[in-house]
C-alpha cells in the first residue's frame, strides 16, 4: 500500500493536538487517567463526533451546513417525545427528516443556491419544529437508548470505541471505495465528475442524506446521555462541528476531507473546553482561549502543509 503523505500530514496534526491535550489534562487532573475518568471526560464527545461527521459530508461537496445544531436539537426533541411514546411514528419522523435533508441538498443543487443561506434558513425551521415537538423542557429518552450510551464495555470506554468505529467506517466509505472517490471528486472538480456521467444532483442528495443520518445519530446519542431534552440543547453544535471538521483537515473548498481527522478534531474541541476548565481559567476568557487554540492548530497545519509540499 502506498502511503499517502498528504493524508498523513492532515490527520497527524489533530492526532498530535489530541495527544498534547490529553497529556496536559492527565497532568492537571490525574483522576482522569482511569476508565471512569476517561468516560466522564469523553462521553459528551460522541454526539459531537457524529455532528462533525455530518458537517464533513456537507464540506465534501464544498458546502457549509449552518443548520446541523438545529437539526440535532430537533432529533433530540423527537427522541424524548415521539420515539419514546410511539416508536414507529418516531422512526418515521426521523426518516422523513433525513429525506428533508436530502431534499435541501437537491434544492441547493437545482436552484444553484448558496448552501450557507439555505442551511441557515433551515436552522430556524429545525429550531421551530423542535419547539413545536417539545414546547417546554422535559420528555424522557427511551430506556434502551439510555442503556446503550451507558454501556461500560470492559477495558475501553464506550466513547473511545465509538470514536474509533465511526472514524474507520467513515474512512472506508469515503477514502477506500470508488463511490467515495466520486463523492470527493464532486467537491474537487464537479465538471469532471459530470462529464464522466455522474449526476451532481444524486451526489449532493447522497451527501446531504448522509449528513442527515449522522445528525440523527448525534441527536439520538445526545438524548441518550442527557436522558431528557430541551429546544436549545444542541444549538452550539453548528460551530463546534465546523471547527472540528476544519481542524481535522477538511477544507472549505470541498473535495479535501478526512473522516478520521474529523473525529480527532471533534475530540480536540471537546477536550479543549475541559482543559480550560481544569486550568480554572476565568470563563470570560475561555471562549477567547478556545478560539486561540483553534487558530494555533490551524496555523500549524498551514506550516505542515507547506512542509509536505502541498501547494
Amino acid at each position: 500500500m502506498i502511503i499517502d503523505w498528504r493524508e498523513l500530514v492532515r490527520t497527524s496534526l489533530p492526532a498530535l493536538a489530541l495527544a498534547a491535550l490529553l497529556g496536559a489534562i492527565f497532568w492537571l487532573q490525574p483522576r482522569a487517567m482511569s476508565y471512569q475518568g476517561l468516560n466522564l471526560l469523553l462521553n459528551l464527545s460522541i454526539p459531537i463526533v457524529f455532528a462533525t461527521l455530518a458537517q464533513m459530508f456537507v464540506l465534501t461537496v464544498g458546502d457549509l451546513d449552518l443548520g446541523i445544531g438545529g437539526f440535532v436539537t430537533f432529533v433530540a426533541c423527537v427522541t424524548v417525545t415521539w420515539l419514546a411514546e410511539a416508536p414507529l411514528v418516531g422512526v418515521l419522523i426521523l426518516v422523513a427528516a433525513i429525506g428533508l435533508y436530502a431534499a435541501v441538498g437537491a434544492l441547493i443543487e437545482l436552484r444553484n443556491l448558496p448552501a450557507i443561506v439555505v442551511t441557515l434558513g433551515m436552522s430556524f425551521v429545525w429550531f421551530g419544529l423542535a419547539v413545536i415537538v417539545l414546547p417546554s423542557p422535559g420528555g424522557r429518552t427511551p430506556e434502551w437508548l439510555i442503556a446503550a450510551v451507558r454501556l461500560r464495555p470492559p477495558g475501553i470506554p464506550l466513547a473511545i470505541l465509538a470514536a474509533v468505529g465511526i472514524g474507520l467506517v467513515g474512512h472506508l466509505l469515503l477514502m477506500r471505495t470508488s463511490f467515495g472517490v466520486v463523492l470527493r471528486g464532486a467537491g474537487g472538480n464537479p465538471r469532471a465528475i459530470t462529464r464522466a456521467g455522474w449526476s451532481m444532483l444524486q451526489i449532493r442528495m447522497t451527501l446531504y442524506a448522509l449528513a442527515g443520518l449522522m445528525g440523527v445519530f448525534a441527536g439520538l446519542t445526545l438524548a441518550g446521555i442527557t436522558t431528557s431534552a430541551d429546544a436549545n440543547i444542541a444549538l452550539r453544535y453548528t460551530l463546534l462541528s465546523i471547527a472540528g471538521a476544519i481542524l481535522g483537515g477538511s477544507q472549505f473548498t470541498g473535495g479535501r476531507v478526512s473522516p478520521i481527522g474529523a473525529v480527532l478534531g471533534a475530540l480536540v474541541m471537546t477536550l479543549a473546553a475541559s482543559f480550560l476548565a481544569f486550568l480554572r481559567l476565568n470563563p470570560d476568557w475561555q471562549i477567547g482561549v478556545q478560539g486561540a487554540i483553534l487558530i494555533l492548530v490551524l496555523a500549524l497545519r498551514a506550516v505542515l502543509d507547506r512542509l509536505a509540499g502541498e501547494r
Partner: protein
Amino acid sequence: MAARTLCAALGAALLSTTAMAEIATGDTSGMRIALSNNFAGNSWRQAMLKSWDEVSSQAVAEGIVAEAPAFTTAENQATEQAAQIQNLILQGFDAIVLNAASPTALNGAVREACDAGVVVVSFDGIVTEPCAWRIVIDFAGMGTAQLDYLAEKMPEGGKLLEIRGLAGVFVDDEIHSGIVKGVETHSQFEVVGSVHGDWTQTVAQREVSGILPTLPAIDAVVTQGGDGYGAAQAFRAAGRDIPLIIMGNRHDELTWWQEQRDATGYETMSLSIAPASAQVGFWVAQQILAGREVPQDLLLPTLVIEQDELDYWLEQTEEGGVTNAVYTLDWTDKMIEAVAAGEPVPPTPTAE
C-alpha cells in the same frame, strides 16, 4: 481522601444516632463544594455570584470547607454545563451546587454525579433528576402573597390590573396561578385587565398605557417584578390616579416608592427572589455532607419588603439591581426543619 471519607462517615453515623433535626456538625473541613452556574450576564446573577463568594470565602476562612469555588460556563448552553458538571466530578468535588441551564437536559450529568457519590443541590434553575436536591422558589406563593396583602389593605375589595411576565415561561405561569388562587380566596377582588410586561419596565409601561383607556378605575396592580415602575409611569402619563402597585424589589421601583411615600404617604409592598439563594444552596450542601438527612425538595420564601422596612431594604439594593439578603447556616437549618415538618418556611432573614 479515604481518611476524609471515613471521618465524614463517622460523623454521619454519630449524628444519625443522636440529633437528627439539628444542625449537623459532621466534619466537612476537608470537603470541597463547587458552584456550577450557567449564566452571569445580568445584575441578578452578578449579585448571586457575589453572594456565593461571600459565603464561600467566609466558610473557607472558618475551616468549614476546604474550598468552594464558582464555575460559570462561557456560554449559556446545557451541553456545556453538562460537560462542566462532569469535569467537576473528575476534579473530585464532594458537592455541586447547581443553577441549571435546563431543568431536564442536565439530568444525565447529574445522574453521573450522584453515581460518583457527589451531592448535587440545585436552586433557582432546578433540575428534575430525582437524586438531586431542589431548592424550589415559591413562585405561586409570590402571587397569593400579593392578594393576601391587598385583602388586608382593602377589605372591601376592588378592581385589579394584572401584569404578567414573559409568555410561555414557567415562572410566569406559576406566579399567575398564585394570583388566580389568591383571587379565588379573596373573592371581593376582580381582575379586570391583564397584560404581559415581560419583567421589563419599558415593556410594562407600553402595555399598560395601551390597555388603560379600556379599563374602569383600577384599585390595585398585581405584578411579577421589574414592571411596577413602568406601570406607575403609564398611570401618570394617562393622567389617572396611581393605584396601589405591588413592586418587585428592583432599585428603580423601591426608589420611586420611597419618593411617593415621602411626598404623599403612598403605601404598598414589594417582593421578589433574593440572589443570595446561592448561599442557601451552599449551606444545604454543607449540611448534607455533614451527615444530615435533608428532604429532597426544599422551599425558599420570597423576599418581602413592607412599608416600615423600605429604607432598610433600599440600602441593601445596589443601583440598577435587585434587593439581596444574607442567608446563614442558622436560617437554612430553620428552613430545612420547617420543610421536614411540613410547616411554612421562615421569612427572609434581616440583619440584626
